[in-house]
């Protein structure tokens, strides 16, 4: 039921009930929450806590597919020209659309900025958010129409003057295809420098518009909204066909998988099935990572389901896992040079570890986007990101208490 950031949905079906594909099986609780839908038709065999990618057991609905894959009858296709902005946003919310980059933030929230924030620029993120992942790239190559339908809808919703699709310069095929597809349309295709983390929201905005989102602020503070290209496609499905978000593209890759692939997966598919489809394992993996190598979550096993935010499944062998013991910081300043937020990671991490929270937040710990660049380059293999994350959590907890 926890398919997105925000309050998890609450199961609205019972064991033994038969459900159709696309039927709502969990209802939203609160504004920052979206409903959950059955990914296929079948019978509900359990409503209980199951292992979840976040590492703990969370409420889940288990469906035994009947093989018919029959759509629910109450899908409501919409005519975009007849819908108001609010109608579109409501349809997106009902369809359970979330940001498909990986964070899975409910899309309808992003689509309802407060009225005083005028969105002048709408950016579509075609930059792969992390190395190894190619899901967005495949999406752009195979389904440009769906993406562009979504782009048009979102442009209408935001009333933006400028619409940009940012794509990394090393994907000329996707750039060429999209340029051809939207010839004549008021959409810019912008090739961007290939560097991590170009796909991070704030960095993307800076690259496209030259504006820096203020510290502690949101993109809307600089008049920008950012959506993933896959999210655009999901928005199009939701508005034009009334289809809920029940599938996504996921990259299955890593040295321990036999045939790395991009798969179109149903939400809720167990990871073990993804592995099977990709020809199985070459050896016992050392690390199972859901998401990308820089920001993904390690898993305890293959028995967890893919969620709406599962952009990738990365399988590393033992020898790919960095097991070097942590050394003292030699102040080589590589993390400082690497930090896309211009922070001093080593200083923040050192303060965080000593619970010197006032100092840590003075060094802008809260601005860290946890991209992993600092830990990646650190020659002393200090878990910088983890330390900063720990500090951030402690700072937040302290703020809540006071």
């Amino acid at each position, binding site marked *: 039921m926890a398919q997105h950031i925000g309050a998890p949905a609450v199961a609205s079906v019972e064991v033994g009930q038969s459900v159709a594909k696309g039927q709502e099986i969990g209802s939203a609780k609160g504004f920052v929450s979206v409903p959950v839908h059955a990914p296929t038709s079948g019978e509900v065999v359990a409503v209980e806590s199951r292992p979840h990618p976040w*590492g*703990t057991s969370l409420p889940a609905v288990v469906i035994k597919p009947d093989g018919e894959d029959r759509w629910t009858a109450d899908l409501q296709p919409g005519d975009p020209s007849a819908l108001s902005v609010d109608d579109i946003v409501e349809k997106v919310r009902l369809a359970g659309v979330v940001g498909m980059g990986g964070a899975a933030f409910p899309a309808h929230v992003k689509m309802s900025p407060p009225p005083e924030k005028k969105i002048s620029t709408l950016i579509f993120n075609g930059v792969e958010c992390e190395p190894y992942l190619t899901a967005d790239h495949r999406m752009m190559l195979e389904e440009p129409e769906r993406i562009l339908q979504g782009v048009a809808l979102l442009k209408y919703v935001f009333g933006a003057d400028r619409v940009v699709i940012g794509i990394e310069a090393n994907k000329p095929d996707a750039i060429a295809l999209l340029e051809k597809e939207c010839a004549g349309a008021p959409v810019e295709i912008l090739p961007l420098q290939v560097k991590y983390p170009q796909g991070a929201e704030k960095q993307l905005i800076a690259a496209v518009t030259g504006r820096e989102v203020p510290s502690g602020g949101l993109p809307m503070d600089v008049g920008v909204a950012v959506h993933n290209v896959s999210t655009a496609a999901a928005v199009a499905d939701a508005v034009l066909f009334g289809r809920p978000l029940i599938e996504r593209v996921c990259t299955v890759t890593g040295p321990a998988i036999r045939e790395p692939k991009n798969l179109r997966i149903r939400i809720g598919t167990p990871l073990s099935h993804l592995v099977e489809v990709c020809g199985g394992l070459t050896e016992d993996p050392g690390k199972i990572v859901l998401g990308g190598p820089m920001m993904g979550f390690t898993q305890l096993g293959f028995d967890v389901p893919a969620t709406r935010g599962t952009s990738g499944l990365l399988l590393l062998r033992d020898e790919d896992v960095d097991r070097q013991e942590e050394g003292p910081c030699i102040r080589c300043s590589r993390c400082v040079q690497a930090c896309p937020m211009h922070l001093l990671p080593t200083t923040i991490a050192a303060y965080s*570890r000593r619970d010197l929270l006032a100092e840590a937040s003075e060094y802008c710990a809260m601005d860290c986007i946890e991209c992993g660049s600092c830990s990646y380059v650190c020659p002393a293999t200090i878990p910088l990101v*983890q*330390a900063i*994350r*720990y500090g951030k959590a*402690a700072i937040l907890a302290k703020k809540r208490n006071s």
Partner: protein
Amino acid sequence: MLAAILSLGCIGLVAAIALGLAAKKFAVEVDPRELAAMEVLPGANCGACGFPGCAGYAKALVAGTIDLNQCPPGGADVVAKLARILGVEASAAAREIAVVLCQGDNRKAQVKYQYLGLADCTAAQKIAGGPKACPGGCLGLASCQRACPFDAIEMTADGLAVISREKCTGCRKCLAVCPRNVIRMTPYESAIHVLCNSHDKGAMVRKYCQIGCIGCHICKKTIPGAYKVEDFLATVVYEQDEEAIEAIGKCPTKCIRDFSDGYPEGSKLLPVAADKPHAA
């Protein structure tokens, strides 16, 4: 000679007048009782009282907003002194100490994955709920040891936190940093504890820990008043634990321990001869 006396005297006089005027002009009020209270407090600034440091506590005491017994490190001695300074009756607090309710070190309790990263329990807990298979067991990454201002916590070689009964002052700092709530406050007089923190069913506990409580009720059946079992976990009823010692030998997993008899295995701490009235 006269010149010397006169000139020095004049300098002194001028200075005295200037200082006197300045003292009037720049006077700042400080309650003398606050300073006196500061003198008496231990000065460890541990924060157990809930105020920022001993100075903050002293201020609150003088303001009369709180009780005198908020300083566990100081103990009864400090309370008595404070009472004298502030001119009120002392209400002595019973001494409480912290105990780690777990004996499942890395050899006795199963580990579900190999953890890589920051050596801190809170950080590890965020990774799939921590490497220990038991959801309540001590993670052994020494966060409590680092938090302890009194050097009262020992980490055994196999990764288990053990708190010295003598050194612990009951400041509760370790409780605050433990992500698994395996550390509890207990009356100092009670040296017998059920050292387990898992509410899982017995069969589950057996799977991941050799020395965890399986909720078999034997202790409770042996000495009915001294133990209670809730959610498959036995605990000592500290108010009436006079005969709790009788059940220790009966526990099938040996998870009841009398600290006056010895600390958990692997600990280098030595039991201090029990000073509790009902020691066997």
